[in-house]
């Protein structure tokens, strides 16, 4: 059972997406786990063949409990008496008499197809590969002894992106509704989790708030014009533009993008904007759009739709839950004009977005009617001061005045 968030210590296995004997690759969804916050897909940490599923659906187990056992491709599936000792798929730790994926030792073990025998990968390169979804098996290393460094991963990503132009929307497995409800009321457990997290936020984080009203005339006009050229599916809603602008603003004000850990601010190297999604059964999740600032606006829009639909279908991925560096909560659709939000620990800021409202607005000394939005930044006063929050909002305002550059 992997940890799917800093505050998680146990989870309920909802269902298996694989069976014993299936071949899986690193990154393949293997199971659905209920974390009390939401249902999340757990991906395989390695390539291999599923030898045994160790936890029954509906069971609640502590983080660190082995869920399944994998063996390397090419290995005979171990006979039952040989596999008595449990091994975690997520954390292959060698134990006597137990072959552990990915079996890097020399000898009679058949190396997995496409594996890198003895290949070394720098920690940064490994992290980049995970974030960018690059398969390390396909990366050739440029370092000493073929070690993979960050630039090799970046080069590999460049080529894969070219090879896979705009793959048609991946068909989500629709039929997999939660078949085995968790033992206790999922709704109340989710409320408990939110309660614990938000109580901690209000107890530990000295919030400050700064707010501004932004003229969205330029943005809405630009969207109206450009959306006319787009099919319905590709149309961009103002919320997506605000997200993109917020990500760019976060990059310019790195003090708001990161985590408060051990009494110190740790800036995040990338902007992974968290998006608060209200799920209909009473859950609230805030998964990340990875590297938001690097995506084009249409990509942000597509990522947003994908994320929201998967959040509601309980199909979020581990990294999406764990990675947000700054969260945006947009309650404009719920009709409110202003959102003064609570920061998600250990993040240090949260942007609240209200409804787009037509207001009387002074332009060049004359009163006009303009679409406007109220933006409120909640900041952690331990990490930054109001001036930083104010500069962030000013940057955000400026960015929104030039939607064509987003």
């Amino acid at each position, binding site marked *: 059972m992997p940890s799917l968030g800093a505050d998680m210590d146990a989870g309920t296995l909802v269902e298996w997406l694989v069976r014993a004997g299936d071949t899986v690759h690193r990154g393949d969804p293997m199971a659905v786990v209920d974390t009390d916050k939401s249902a999340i897909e757990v991906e395989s940490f390695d390539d291999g063949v599923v030898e045994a599923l160790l936890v029954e659906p509906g069971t609640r187990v502590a983080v660190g409990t082995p869920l399944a056992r994998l063996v390397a491709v090419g290995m005979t599936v171990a006979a039952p008496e040989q596999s008595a000792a449990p091994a975690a798929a997520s954390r292959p730790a060698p134990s006597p008499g137990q072959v552990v994926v990915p079996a890097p030792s020399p000898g009679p073990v058949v190396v997995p197809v496409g594996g890198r025998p003895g290949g070394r990968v720098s920690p940064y390169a490994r992290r980049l590969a995970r974030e960018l979804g690059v398969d390390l098996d396909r990366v050739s290393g440029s370092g000493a002894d073929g070690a993979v460094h960050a630039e090799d991963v970046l080069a590999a990503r460049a080529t894969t992106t070219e090879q896979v132009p705009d793959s048609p929307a991946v068909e989500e497995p629709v039929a997999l509704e939660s078949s085995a409800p968790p033992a206790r009321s999922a709704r109340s457990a989710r409320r408990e989790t939110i309660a614990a997290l938000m109580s901690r936020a209000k107890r530990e984080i000295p919030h400050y708030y700064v707010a501004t009203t932004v003229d969205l005339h330029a943005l809405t006009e630009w969207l*109206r014009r450009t*959306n006319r050229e787009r099919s*319905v599916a590709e149309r961009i*809603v*103002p*919320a997506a533009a605000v997200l993109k602008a917020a990500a760019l603003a976060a990059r310019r004000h790195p003090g708001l993008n990161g985590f408060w850990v051990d009494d110190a601010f740790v800036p995040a190297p990338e902007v992974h904007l968290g998006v608060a999604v209200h799920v209909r059964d009473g859950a609230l999740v805030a998964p990340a759009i990875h590297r938001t600032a690097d995506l084009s606006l249409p990509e942000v829009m597509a990522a947003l*739709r994908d994320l929201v639909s998967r959040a509601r279908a309980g199909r979020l991925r581990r990294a999406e839950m764990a990675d947000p560096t700054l969260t945006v909560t947009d309650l*404009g*659709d719920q009709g409110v004009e202003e959102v003064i939000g609570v920061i998600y620990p250990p993040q240090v800021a949260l942007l609240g977005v209200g409804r787009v409202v037509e207001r009387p607005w002074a332009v060049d000394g004359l009163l006009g009617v303009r679409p406007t939005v109220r933006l409120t930044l909640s900041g952690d006063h331990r990490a930054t001061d109001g001036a930083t929050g104010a500069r962030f909002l000013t940057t955000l305002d400026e960015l929104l005045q030039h939607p064509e550059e987003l």
Partner: protein
Amino acid sequence: MTITREQARDVVERAVRRIVPDADVASVGDDADLRAAFELDSLDFLSFVELLATETGVRIDEDDYPELTTATGCTDLLVRRAG
């Protein structure tokens, strides 16, 4: 392609149910505000419009959105455009 009022009305109901599975359009009335009644956010509404457009082949622009507030409005627009 022309469609009847009943067919159009059926497309609207099915589209709402695809987004909110337990939604009952009849229960809120033909002139109720769909977004308010079913708590559709802007992404939901975009999906709703997408479903209406793909099911009927009708072109729907953002300028048409105000007309799509109620079930009646949606039905009217689909019948008029398809015809």
